[in-house]
């Protein structure tokens, strides 16, 4: 099932399927690219950032950016 990154549940794992235009370069430096496994750690309240784990590293992403990343959630 494909969904936007912030829609993932805590501890859920997925694979990045699509990153909306123009954003690829911005998140690539943080290790996020298509094909990469990603795990949802926390979502901060009040439209705060989401924290994910990529390559054993925690990375926080602004909600606006996270919404442009589409992941395939693993069952």
């Amino acid at each position: 099932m494909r969904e936007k990154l912030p829609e993932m549940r805590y501890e859920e794992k997925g694979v990045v399927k699509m990153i909306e235009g123009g954003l690829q370069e911005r998140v690539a430096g943080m290790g996020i690219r298509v094909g990469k496994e990603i795990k949802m750690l926390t979502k901060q309240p009040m439209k705060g950032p989401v924290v994910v784990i990529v390559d054993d590293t925690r990375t926080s992403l602004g909600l606006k950016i996270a919404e442009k990343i589409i992941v395939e959630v693993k069952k």
Partner: protein
Amino acid sequence: MKILLMGHPNVGKSAVFNRLTGANVIESNYPGTTVDYTKGYMRMRGEDITVVDVPGTFSLEPKDKAEEVAVKMLEEERDAVVICIIDSSKIERGLYLTLEIMERGYPVMLALNMWDVAEDKNVDIDVEKLRKVLGIPVIPTVAISGEGIGELIRKIKEARAVEVDKIIKKAGGIDETNR
């Protein structure tokens, strides 16, 4: 000759810097910002070399002031040699920055720093293959203990600019970035 030390934040750039330069250090404030960088000197075979500890950056697409300074410093030093410093346990993201710098045509060499941490995490890196694929010197280092720093200095002269297209070919031609 000028050497820029570049890499992600907290990969040991300053530790490498201290190893290369000793205590002879000038700390400066990059004009117009509050981001500090350090500059020092080392002597190699009678030649004075300026070493600059560039603020850590994740990519060459700046997201904050410190990254802006890092990118600007790189752009202003067209003839500098870049030593890319990578956290060996998180090698992939570090290589992204390395390739970005190589894409801009700088002579680059790679220090796989925090090698001991990678070993602890059971991360096994085929250094020889990396050397072949990238076509630049690749040296495992542990900056806090000084391991590999001697080799790093010896290989500075071998740092070179390599076209990224060639690297992609040698890596098997797989371009996953869907650009």
